[in-house]
């Protein structure tokens, strides 16, 4: 059963078409990685799917209850502590006790320590900030999560740690998700399915299912899959092309 369906999405900025006839279907509890060369419209598609941008044409059908977005930047409120930043995702009507429990659970899920919760964003490192952003998304009790290249600015070890958090809490039947990345290893590591967006935004070029479940794959298998995709699979030929038509 699908939880998010994008049909025939098209969008244009100032008359220039950036997305055309994109159709994508994401199943219940499925995590889909969307890859494509820089500037092909991945982020725009995500913003449209998350309701932040109104598409020129096409239809979006959502059957999940709530969604949340983890952006490329942490986007934390600088005047609020990590605790309050996470808490802002919660419904207003929760009691103080429930609120505390929810924040605590979300922070624990994102491997944030209790003492960090009383710090302001300026006092947190880059990884901590992004973890707070993930905790905020998890606290919102969203049943669908969008990720817009969230770990690009992090170093490889930290990135792997964050990917594990995503694998643990998204997909595997709990929540569905759409994850944008330009890192093929990341895509292969966390997703059930990798979808390639056409380099000019003209629809989806194709998709590949990855064997095994995310979390069960070992580094060797991930490495070999990525090598196979990049060297032998024509679908991925343009993924690493550089075409900075526009930012985002």
């Amino acid at each position, binding site marked *: 059963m699908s939880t998010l369906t994008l049909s025939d999405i098209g969008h244009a900025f100032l008359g220039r078409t950036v997305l055309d006839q994109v159709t994508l279907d994401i199943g219940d509890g499925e995590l889909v990685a969307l890859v494509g060369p820089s500037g092909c419209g991945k982020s725009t598609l995500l*913003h449209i799917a*998350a*309701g*932040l941008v109104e598409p020129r044409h096409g239809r979006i059908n959502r059957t999940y209850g*709530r*969604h*949340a*977005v983890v*952006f490329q*930047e942490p*986007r934390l*409120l*600088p*005047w*609020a*502590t990590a605790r309050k930043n996470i808490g*802002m*995702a919660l419904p*207003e009507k929760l009691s103080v006790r429930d609120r505390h429990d929810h924040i605590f659970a979300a922070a624990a899920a994102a491997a944030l320590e209790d003492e960090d919760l009383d*710090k*302001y*964003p*300026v*006092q947190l490192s880059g990884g901590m900030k992004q973890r707070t952003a993930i905790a*905020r998304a998890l606290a*919102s009790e969203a049943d669908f999560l*969008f990720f817009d290249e969230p770990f690009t600015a992090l170093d490889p070890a930290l990135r792997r740690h964050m990917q594990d958090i995503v694998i643990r809490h998204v997909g595997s039947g709990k929540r569905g998700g759409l994850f944008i990345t330009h890192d093929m290893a990341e895509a292969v590591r966390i997703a059930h399915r990798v979808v390639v967006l056409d380099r000019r935004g003209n629809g989806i070029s194709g998709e590949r299912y990855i064997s095994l479940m995310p979390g069960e794959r070992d580094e060797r298998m991930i490495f070999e899959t990525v090598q196979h995709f990049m060297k032998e699979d024509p679908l991925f030929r343009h993924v690493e092309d550089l075409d900075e038509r526009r930012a985002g």
Partner: protein
Amino acid sequence: MPSLAGRISRTAQFLWSGWSGLAGLSVFAALWQVAHEAYGNFILPSPLETLAAATALLGEASSWQLLLTTSSRALSGFALAGAIGTMAGCLAGFHPALLRLVQPQITLMLGVPPIAWIVLLMIWFGTGSATVTTTAAIACLPIVFLGAAEGIANRDRLLDDMALSLGMGRVRRFVRITVPQMLNRLFSILIMALGTAFKAAVMAELLANAGGIGEALAVSRSNLDVANALAWILLSVSALLAVEYGLIQPTRSELEVWRHAARPWGVKR
């Protein structure tokens, strides 16, 4: 939530920073003393003499009445400009077209000399509190308006998107995301506006003969009593400082604990 210990430590730090303020004032007093010794008692009485004159003034109930009159006029002008300026600024900040239309009028308002306003207001309202309060309000309205408008117009739109993606409604986004960002900018402007309101009020009082510190100054001038004039200046500055450090700065530090956390140690204390 800020803990009690954190609050006490912040209050202590605030009080402690009074020492550096005192040190700065002492430097000023030293320069004053030098000038006094160079030009003599008639042109510039010494700081101690001025202080004595000010203390003598404070001994009289009528001086307190004058101080209170001027302060309340300046503060009501400031409050009026703060309320109107902030609301209008918010509107203009959200609508760039409106801001573009209003901008020339702000330039116009800033360009008209305050003295011209006082003349007009004296004709309209006579020589009473209304003239003084309105002069103070008009003097600080443009800067408050621009501060609020820029605070809104330069808000971080990425945070808006973030709040939208969490399903926050329009009102909640405004209150929780936009207003804190605006206040951030507005506060330093408000401090400036408060000073402007006091200055404008004293000037309007002097010119309109409307009582308060301004009129006391006018009396000192006609008596060529420099010590008394300086004492009144000292008192009006003290009134301003009392409002700023008793009201505005505590509110600001309450709202901007996060900013304090971001400061390097040497700047903090």
